[in-house]
């Protein structure tokens, strides 16, 4: 199996228009969660979300177009022979809102396949690309799929772009499921009461080490292992025993050929819902037994960015490995009793070369990636 290097990484979140700004916000313990002004929320069980500053649709456009511009402008010289994989759960679903309200729209971005088509065109890539849709693990699986193409020798360079936006379509849905917090997500807190939606994007360029050398690209980190598994238990609720997440993480650790003691930290999905966070702690306890491994969640700061969550967390995970420090879990006040020794509202120094990042979602999906520290800070 060939090594899979991450050679470029970018992020846009509600904390800032770059990975660096997002990182600084996280480390300062800031949250971007605030009252939504994009659409009326008075009939929903929350008014809070983490929306990106000044992200407004252009004339008859979807928000996804602007977000695409903001993420792509951060990339440096993507080889035109790169394969393209995008990840989104709803792409430009705000265009559908307009269609159903009989408002004018221009280029509809409703179909998920329109995202790779648009990005391929903008970057002048030979590959038209595909989109992967697997709920909140979409981009985790997209990174895993891209890595597998490089590892197996089927590709030299793969670009993963992931994004989702805060729309009334999605907001109203999570409200109808009573899944949203009215005050802001507090992952792993004993008084957590739901998730908060966020919007964001990430781009991750992966290459074989040979291709990275040829193109003079830095080694930001390695996608060392990956795994995915289904709970086969419930469509919208996680399996209480964490069976799918355990299976996905074990596959990832096995592929990375590292023992659990090599993992320096875990970036959890950590949505702030009662059952998700409980399931994750159960799974991590099972995987790591009595090891006290630092765990964090970024969703109290940038919200739950759905299909973009896994990609953003890969970018931030590499940053954590590089600096050997795990950002605080923003929103955490008093930890859930079972997570008391794992999570922190303060940054935590870590020591090691590997970080496990996991995501789970509707449809019983679970995915895990083992990241390895790169040579370039």
């Amino acid at each position, binding site marked *: 199996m060939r090594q899979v290097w991450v050679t470029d990484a970018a992020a846009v979140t509600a904390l800032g228009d770059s990975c660096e700004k997002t990182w600084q916000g996280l480390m300062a313990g800031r949250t971007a969660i605030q009252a939504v002004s994009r659409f*009326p929320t*008075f*009939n*929903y069980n929350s008014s809070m979300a983490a929306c990106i500053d000044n992200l407004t649709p252009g004339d008859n456009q979807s928000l996804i177009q602007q977000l695409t511009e903001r993420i792509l402008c951060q990339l440096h010289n993507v080889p035109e022979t790169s394969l393209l994989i995008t990840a989104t*759960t*709803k792409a430009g*679903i705000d265009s*559908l*809102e307009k*269609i*159903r*309200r009989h408002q004018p729209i221009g*280029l*509809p971005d*409703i*179909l*998920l*396949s*329109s995202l*790779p*088509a648009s990005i391929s065109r903008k970057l002048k890539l030979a590959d*038209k690309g*595909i*989109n*992967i*849709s*697997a*709920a909140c693990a*979409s981009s985790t*699986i997209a990174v895993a*799929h891209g890595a*597998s193409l490089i590892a*197996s020798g*089927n590709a030299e360079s793969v670009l993963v772009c992931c994004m989702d936006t805060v729309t*009334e*379509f999605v907001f*109203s*849905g*999570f*409200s*109808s*499921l009573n899944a949203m917090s009215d005050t802001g997500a507090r992952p792993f807190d004993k008084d957590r009461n739901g998730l908060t939606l966020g919007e964001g994007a990430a781009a991750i360029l992966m290459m074989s080490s040979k291709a990275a050398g040829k193109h003079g690209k830095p080694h930001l980190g390695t996608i060392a292992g990956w795994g*995915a*598994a*289904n*709970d*086969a*238990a419930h*469509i*919208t609720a996680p399996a209480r025993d964490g*069976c*799918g997440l355990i*299976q996905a993480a074990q*596959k990832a650790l096995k592929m990375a050929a590292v023992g659990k003691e090599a993992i320096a930290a875990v970036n959890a999905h950590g949505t702030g819902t009662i059952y998700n966070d409980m399931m994750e702690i159960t799974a991590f306890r099972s995987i790591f037994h009595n090891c006290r491994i630092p765990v964090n969640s970024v969703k109290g700061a940038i919200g739950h960015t759905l299909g973009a969550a896994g990609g953003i967390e890969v970018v931030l995970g590499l940053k954590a490995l590089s600096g050997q420090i795990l950002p605080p879990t923003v929103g955490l006040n008093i930890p859930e009793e079972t997570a008391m020794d794992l999570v922190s509202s303060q940054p935590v120094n870590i020591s090691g070369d590997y970080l496990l990042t996991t995501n789970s*979602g*509707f*449809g*019983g*999906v679970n*995915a895990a990636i083992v990241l390895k520290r790169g040579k370039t800070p």
Partner: protein
Amino acid sequence: MTAVITGIGWVSSTSMGCGTDHDHVSMKKGPLPDIKRKMVLAKPAKAFGRMDRFSKTGLAAISFALKDACLETWDKKRDIGIIASTTYGCLDTDIRYFDTVIPEQGLLASPGLFAYTLSNCFLGEAAIYFGLTGAGYIINEMLPGGMYSLQTALRILVSGENDIMVCGFCDLGNPIPLDNETGTDDTVSGALFFVIEKIPGKSCKTYGTLRMEENSRIFLNETAIDNWCMLADTCFKKNDAFKA
């Protein structure tokens, strides 16, 4: 890179079922049948009545394919993955859901419909009903009928991640005219799924050997395959030989 096809299942405007019970697959355009649980699942599934049309169609085809491969029954969860291609996905459900949001500014938003506005949900329903714990995801391709999910499933078998995969497509066509390059509604309505295995397992038959070249070109029994329907047709040609 080789594997064998051990099961075929489909739902189309003209027929539905599995390979064992038919001698060909017809995927003509047209309205799809109203699928009832007893038509496709042997045991009760309490969620079936709540599912959207996209999920029922996809789940039914997967169910038929697993039955065809003698993998319908289980007593212990199995590490079998499912990958499905789609172009329009659950857009029809998206529309029906958002039409519940508009009238009272969200007050009447339907949680039952919202749960099915993710096109991977029917893979989760199949995973629950058949105890499948492998990876499950949707691949959205620009062109309807793309075979990326088959290529991916074959690569997963080769990598050793799974020994059995279910792959195919599910599409209900375009519910709204879209004035862009993906908006041409030349989609075959329905679902067609295949069970592919590294080595034949419980199944009493195979439909032949799949081979993928380095350039991702796929062959079944050394016949080059261009699309899903051609793959099914080629399966039946081989199957005739097996019956003889």
